[in-house]
């Protein structure tokens, strides 16, 4: 991680603290800059910098990754240490989770040794209070002689006090030196080395990177001097001083926590039982309605949703009048004139499926700490956690698959692009090269933009909203617990569930997030599995769209084959790529009500990232197809030649029509793009059920999209990127061939 010290004229504030305590939220409050925050430890993987104006001077604010100790064990901890040593900040703001005082004070006692003015922000003080924890912040403030400010960062509570504290704070005192001055190691201490106790512990850690930083900051004399001191001390028959110091620290922590933290008996105060019961009743009713709508059809029952839609179909036609664009936006009439994807049917769907569950759930989680706590417990136990997971997946499917892939895709792609924008452009541009380039068969607008914006964007956006909600609610770490055993089969551990779930949104983004995994081996396996078999949401939406035209059997076969291949490859890679899974030690944050503003900001941030990354690739892909379609060699376009070349593979092995060649080519540019092409083929009735299943399996397992490929090069190096691709392509084709053969031999049909 690169650290760029910037100009020295600025005053510098560094935010330091345990993971998941709200450093990034405080960063946002101070600077107004947006950085991705979530209820998931370790979200900040890079150091963010921003500016703030305070009392007439400009400050540079640095947000650091979460650390648990300043004796570095992880990359994050080393980075934070280096920032403190190299950049010599003017003020340190330690952000703390008020309810975990012991862990907080470990860092406070270490920071105190730098002698840099500091402020302690006791954040999330409301959660501590709810648990009946009282903290004597005045006492803490006196002990370390630093301001201790109680804050609730997400509501900007305590902001003013924090700002004035940053301006007025002075260097802290180290209570260890005062309280334990009679201890052998403290008496022997030589104060010529700046953060004295800490540097002894650093030395014991024997971290060569850090040692270099210490040399750079204090000179090699200091390091030698310290080494000598440690040797002398040990020669006098003592234990390693680092051990004694960490013992003293523990004593300080015990003593401080005992005197400044009081715990009242009752947990979860100020809750109204009746209101909770009321909303809980609503939630149960909502779940019942959801289940009825979801599964009523299987029992041949007419669901409330069917009933409302039928009524709307019969009556709205006459109520909603006006021009055809307005009518198609509101009603989303399909070719047969029935309601399908308009705003109104979408709204009815949302109101009858999602809202009845989500609204009471949200109210309960935000108003009742005990409910949130219970949800946290239930979602991590397999007996209750698996049903909860299935419920969440169904809700996700309804929101992404229906609201996103049906309503918004219908509005944007079907109504806006296909019915209005493209015909309008076609009429505007005179026939010729330009018309072909923009709105022809492989036109930049008619194909590139309308796929990117019309099909993919709505699906990705709705997925990112859901993912943001899940992330901020604190649900995902619980999913890590549930999935730990399964992940272990594939040489990973529960922590890897985050990139995997994110992969269902965007594999490229997920590949980047494999950084949170602790070993190189795990990052490699996770990257391989992501590019092999995790379909991104756009692709998933298209797959669901195609599969919906066939039976549920087709979907199950596809999911079954892809999942079993993931497990197989994961298992094989544990045998081939040597090493043990890294250990799974993981903090579980409390279940919290996601902040709508934060989820919205995060979604926008991700969509922006997606547009910047995807649209150029879509356009490039379309352009390549356009060029290949236009250039003629011996009377045939390059595209046809390519199709001819791929024919043995496609027709011979996979038994697919030759048209699929272009699609697999597109599939490399973006997998979902390829899937969208399949969607077209299927919609035009050019594929049989068996062919749909085979081609969807192949395209799901097929090479990662170009963007993912580039990301793999960035994260793993080009050799591994090529190796991964070189394995996946033949593997996908083989699996497709075998599945196709089985389907044909046993006469399994899906029509």
């Amino acid at each position, binding site marked *: 991680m690169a650290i760029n010290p910037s100009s020295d004229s600025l005053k510098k504030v560094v935010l330091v603290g345990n993971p998941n305590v709200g450093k990034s939220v405080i960063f946002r409050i101070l600077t107004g800059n947006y950085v991705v925050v979530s209820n998931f430890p370790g979200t900040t993987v890079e150091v963010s910098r921003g500016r703030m104006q305070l009392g007439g001077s400009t400050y540079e604010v640095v947000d650091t990754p979460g650390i*648990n*100790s300043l*004796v570095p*064990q992880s990359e994050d901890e080393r980075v934070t240490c280096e920032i403190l040593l190299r950049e010599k900040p003017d003020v340190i703001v330690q952000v703390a*989770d008020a*309810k*975990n*005082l*012991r*862990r907080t004070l*470990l860092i406070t006692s270490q920071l105190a040794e730098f002698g840099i003015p500091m402020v302690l922000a006791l954040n999330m003080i409301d*959660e*501590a209070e709810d*648990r009946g*924890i009282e903290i004597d912040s005045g006492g803490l403030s006196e002990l370390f002689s630093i301001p201790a400010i109680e804050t609730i960062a997400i509501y900007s509570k305590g902001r003013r006090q924090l700002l004035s504290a940053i301006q007025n704070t002075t260097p802290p005192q180290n209570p260890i030196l005062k309280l334990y001055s009679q201890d052998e190691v403290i008496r022997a201490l030589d104060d010529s080395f700046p953060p004295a106790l800490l540097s002894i512990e650093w030395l014991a850690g024997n971290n060569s990177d850090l040692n270099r930083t210490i040399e750079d900051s204090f000179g090699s004399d200091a390091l030698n001097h310290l080494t000598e001191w440690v040797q002398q001390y040990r020669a006098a028959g003592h234990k390693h001083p680092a051990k004694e110091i960490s013992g003293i620290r*523990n004593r300080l922590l*015990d003593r401080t926590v005992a005197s400044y933290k009081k715990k009242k008996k009752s947990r979860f105060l100020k809750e109204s039982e009746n209101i909770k019961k009321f909303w809980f009743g609503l939630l149960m009713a909502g779940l019942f309605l959801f289940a009825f709508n979801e599964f009523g059809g299987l029992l041949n029952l007419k669901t409330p949703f069917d009933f409302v839609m039928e009524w709307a179909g019969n009556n709205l036609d006459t109520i909603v009048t006006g021009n055809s664009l307005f009518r198609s936006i509101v009603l989303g009439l399909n070719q047969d004139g029935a309601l399908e994807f308009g705003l109104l049917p979408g709204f009815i769907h949302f109101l009858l499926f999602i809202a009845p569950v989500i609204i009471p759930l949200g109210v309960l989680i935000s108003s009742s700490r005990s409910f949130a706590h219970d949800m*946290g*417990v239930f979602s*991590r*136990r*397999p007996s209750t956690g698996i049903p909860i997971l299935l419920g969440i997946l169904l809700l996700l499917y309804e929101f992404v698959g229906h609201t996103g892939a049906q309503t918004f895709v219908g509005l944007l792609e079907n109504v806006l692009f296909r019915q209005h924008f493209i015909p309008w452009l076609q009429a505007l541009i005179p026939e010729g090269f330009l018309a072909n380039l923009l709105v022809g068969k492989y036109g930049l607008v008619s194909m590139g933009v309308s796929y990117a914006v019309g099909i993919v964007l709505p699906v990705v956006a709705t997925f990112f909203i859901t993912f943001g909600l899940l992330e901020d609610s604190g649900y995902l*770490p619980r999913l*890590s*617990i*549930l*999935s*730990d*055993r399964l992940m*272990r089969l594939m040489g990973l*551990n*529960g922590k890897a569930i985050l990139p995997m779930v994110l992969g269902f949104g965007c594999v490229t983004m997920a590949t980047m997030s494999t950084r949170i995994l602790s070993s190189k081996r795990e990052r490699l396996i996770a990257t391989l599995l992501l590019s092999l078999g995790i379909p991104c949401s756009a692709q998933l939406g298209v797959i669901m769209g195609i599969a919906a035209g066939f039976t549920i059997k087709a979907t199950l076969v596809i999911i079954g084959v892809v999942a079993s291949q993931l497990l197989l490859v994961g298992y094989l890679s544990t045998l081939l790529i040597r090493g043990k899974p890294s*250990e*799974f*030690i*993981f*903090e*579980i944050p*409390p279940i919290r009500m996601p902040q709508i503003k934060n989820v919205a900001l995060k979604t926008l941030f991700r969509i922006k990232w997606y547009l910047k990354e995807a649209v150029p690739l879509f356009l490039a892909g379309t352009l390549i197809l356009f060029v290949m379609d236009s250039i003629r060699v011996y009377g045939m376009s390059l595209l046809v030649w390519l199709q001819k070349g791929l024919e043995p593979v496609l027709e011979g092995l996979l038994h697919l029509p030759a048209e699929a060649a272009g699609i697999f080519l597109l599939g490399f540019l973006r997998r979902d793009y390829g899937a969208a092409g399949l969607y077209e083929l299927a919609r035009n009735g050019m594929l049989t059920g068996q062919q749909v299943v085979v081609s969807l399996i192949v395209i799901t397992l097929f090479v990662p999209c170009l963007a993912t490929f580039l990301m793999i090069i960035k994260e793993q190096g080009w050799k591994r990127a090529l190796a991964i691709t070189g394995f996946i392509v033949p593997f996908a084709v083989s699996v497709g061939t075998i599945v196709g053969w089985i389907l044909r031999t046993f006469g399994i049909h899906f029509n």
Partner: protein
Amino acid sequence: MENKTTEEIAEVLEAVWTLQEQGNATVDEVIHSAKTTVSDELLKKLRNEGFLSVNTAGQIRLLEKGKTAAEKIIRRHRLAERLLCDVLAYHVDESEAAACEYEHLLAEGITNSICTLLGHPRYCPHNKPIPEGDCCRQASRALTPIVIPCDQLQVGESAKIAYFSTKEHSRLLKLSALGISPGVTLKLIQKWPACVVQCEETEIAFEPEVAHNIYVWQTPKE
């Protein structure tokens, strides 16, 4: 010289005990497996002092005096193995040699303390039974092994951490940074699919293997 003989006697008694566990002990086998040179003189001394008897077929039988002495030696040896494996995270194979040294060094009181610390284990790492001591007999009445791995706690039980048995420094630091260190009280709140403990107001999940490395003082049940 006196010490050396005591050690030799101990080794012979240990060999006889171990062979008897497997079946029976003959002079030849004892000579073969004892970790000392078993001279006729030594055997004669043992017979004369009433430790053991040898019949005409060369079979050795421990007499009451020999049994008591051998039981203590075996107990020290196997407890030492447990201590090395569980607490100091030695490998089972490494523990053998070191345990041989310990068996001659440990005093009775210390042996019982170690036995209590380890929770009165019944078997050594090689799965051979550890003879009971006074401390075990007292404890088995109260049914409270004192120090147990935290995955043996009941869900919902709280206990104070006694020590970690792992050699992996990074694991120790990771745990202690999350607030899990000796002296801290934790509460086990879930065992499967991963262990979850609560420490202060934080819930921490880890794999069962890590839980097995965390030894806690069990609060005696009433």
